[in-house]
């Protein structure tokens, strides 16, 4: 038996996919499966072909993912009479996909991460397995660099009059922080999640060390009730502008101009960033909006997002009806595999039409923290560029 099949006009030979080679093996038994699994990382990535695998007793197995445009429950096939199941998805180069497996045994259905795949992404709602397709690499600046001097994180408990509660924040000061210098300010929504799931402190340390972004003071804020405070909430906007900014300005050497202030957030945090700026035009020079939940309707109010999206849709519809310049510059990113890709694409001309400079970036990724992490270098270095232009060694 040969492992190659003649293909192509140039007489080149392409290696057959690993799963086909396994299927052709005789005898196709558990020993063959053992050897196969020992030789391959799971999922098996061969060009655009990603082969997902499950081994165990089951009546049905499905790959569950959230890629818009593909069936989101992909049935696996059994490999001969063995305990191995497989499914093949074609994923374009550079894709990163989070998934789980659903296994049915009789009436018992269990969903969970892929036991054969050690790569796992975490989020506030749990973890998922990760398929890194061909061409996707974890950026080197998301893991700690021993050469990078770490900045510090300090707890800030701010009694907020606007929110009528103590707002717990974490303030990042860059490694070489000096009170005799002045710094731009980045306000992060869902701050603890950005720190925990997008490695944002490490990212900041590394980007500043690499001169990719300016030394910046970053305040990580957290919502009380996210579904209340983030979708265009007046109290939240007051908290940011009337409680948080004055408190920070009185205790830290911050640059006192809009171009040195940026709001950022993902998903509902993107809506919160946009709405805070909308309610306070001229305060923030830049917005960094990741997979903003910019759901809107062109007619009627049937948005399909449930009650929690009602205030979002009202806000977005109002904004789209009368677009307003809320900042000078917007960095906007979205994953092409997430349902929010269409609303995000739709907002680009609206933002630009309102006179804002927009840098819009799409990634072959989903609505996930690692997607947002991976876009931070591009976004932060565009919003607050590093001092590379000053260095001539």
């Amino acid at each position: 038996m040969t492992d190659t099949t003649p293909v192509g006009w140039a007489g080149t030979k392409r290696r057959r996919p690993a799963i086909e080679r396994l299927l052709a093996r005789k005898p196709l038994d558990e020993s063959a499966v053992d050897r196969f699994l020992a030789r391959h990382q799971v999922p098996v990535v061969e060009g655009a072909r990603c082969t997902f695998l499950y081994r165990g007793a089951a009546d049905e197995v499905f790959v569950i993912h959230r890629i818009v445009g593909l069936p989101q429950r992909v049935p696996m096939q059994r490999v001969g009479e063995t305990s191995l199941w497989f499914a093949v998805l074609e994923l374009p180069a550079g894709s990163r996909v989070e998934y789980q497996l659903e296994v049915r045994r009789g009436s018992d259905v269990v969903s969970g991460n892929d036991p054969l795949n050690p790569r796992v992404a975490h989020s506030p709602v749990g973890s998922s397995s990760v398929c890194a397709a061909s061409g996707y690499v974890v950026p080197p600046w998301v893991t700690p660099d021993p050469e990078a001097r770490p900045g510090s994180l300090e707890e800030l408990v701010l009694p907020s009059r606007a929110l009528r509660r103590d707002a717990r924040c974490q303030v990042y000061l860059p490694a070489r922080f000096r009170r005799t210098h002045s710094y731009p300010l980045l306000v992060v929504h869902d701050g603890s999640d950005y720190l925990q799931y997008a490695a944002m402190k490490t990212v900041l340390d590394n980007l500043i060390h690499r001169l990719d972004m300016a030394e910046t003071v970053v305040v990580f804020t957290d919502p009380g009730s996210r579904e209340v405070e983030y979708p265009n909430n007046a109290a939240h906007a007051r908290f940011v502008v009337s409680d948080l900014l004055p408190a920070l300005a009185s205790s830290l050497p911050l640059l006192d101009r809009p171009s040195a202030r940026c709001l950022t957030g993902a998903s509902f945090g993107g809506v919160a960033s946009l709405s805070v700026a909308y309610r306070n035009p001229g305060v923030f020079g830049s917005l960094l909006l990741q997979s903003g939940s910019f759901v809107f309707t062109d007619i009627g109010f049937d948005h399909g997002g449930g009650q929690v999206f009602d205030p979002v849709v009202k806000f977005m519809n109002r904004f789209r009806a009368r677009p307003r310049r809320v900042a000078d510059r917007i960095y906007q990113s979205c994953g092409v595999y997430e349902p929010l890709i269409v609303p995000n694409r739709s907002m680009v001309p609206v933002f630009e039409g309102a006179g804002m400079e927009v840098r819009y970036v799409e990634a072959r990724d989903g609505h996930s923290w690692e997607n947002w992490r991976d876009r931070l270098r591009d976004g932060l270095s565009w919003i607050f560029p590093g001092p590379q232009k000053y260095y001539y060694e």
Partner: protein
Amino acid sequence: MSGTPPVTLLGPQRRPTLPGVVESLSLTGLFAIVTAGWQEREKDDAELSSYLGGESVNLALWHRLQDVLDRDPEFAEAFRARRAMLDEMQDLYLMGVGHAMDALLSLYERRSATASLVSRAITDAEEVLRDLDDRHRRRIASVHGAFYDRVVPHERPLVRQHRDEVTVALSGASAAVVAGGHVAALLDAMHLFNVAPLLGSRPVIAWSAGAMALTERVVLFNDRAPHGPAVPEVYDAGLGLVPGVVALPSARKRLLVANGPRMATLARRFAPSACVPLDPGAVVSLSSDRSLPAGTLVVREDGVVGPSGGSDD
């Protein structure tokens, strides 16, 4: 040697050419070292000192500046306010320069129009760029003037003390070397402690940011910036020890030298000053009148890097 002491500009010193240059100039005795561009690492100068025969004194200008900022709050506040204003001015200036540059590069690509008319439009756009540069430079000078009027450095005891110490340290030095690094930090420190007249009276060797700081006009450039080619920008006045030169350290690494229109624009924009690439291994020994010797590699007005003194200059 006649007239003024020699000034030598070098390329980056990752593979040091400094020892050979020191030897060729027959420089001996104590060297004053300026490494303010290295900021926190300013005093990590053991390797550099070894290239100078071990006889050197670091002027520690960056640390002196930090000392002033830490201990003189009024000065620090004024210093910070000036920096914030200059940064904002730089951003606004860059908006104008960016649009003018975009227009210029579009004109270069405009092959469907009458060549003579395009050429005239290019000349106009370059004039706009030069005008923006000149206005910006004058405004920067005005901000510096207001700052010095307000803080009067020579009347501030701490600044005066540091200046005196720098003067003493330099007085025993037979030559000075100015290293690269962060050009803004280097300029801040050199300007505050007023080292220009002290450096001007002895041989100086400078490289990278150090070479930029010695010129009249510091131009920042990076065609390989993370978000695409940045527009060269006038940053500030240098010490003026090297007139008529725009220093371009690591030009081949930082500039799209094969892009003729960009390079031609660079050369014409800053003419009559010469845009001088300072790549690794470069040694530019200025003439006794501080002019560039004929044959120095420059960016010519046709966008080609070649020896000066040719028909295209």
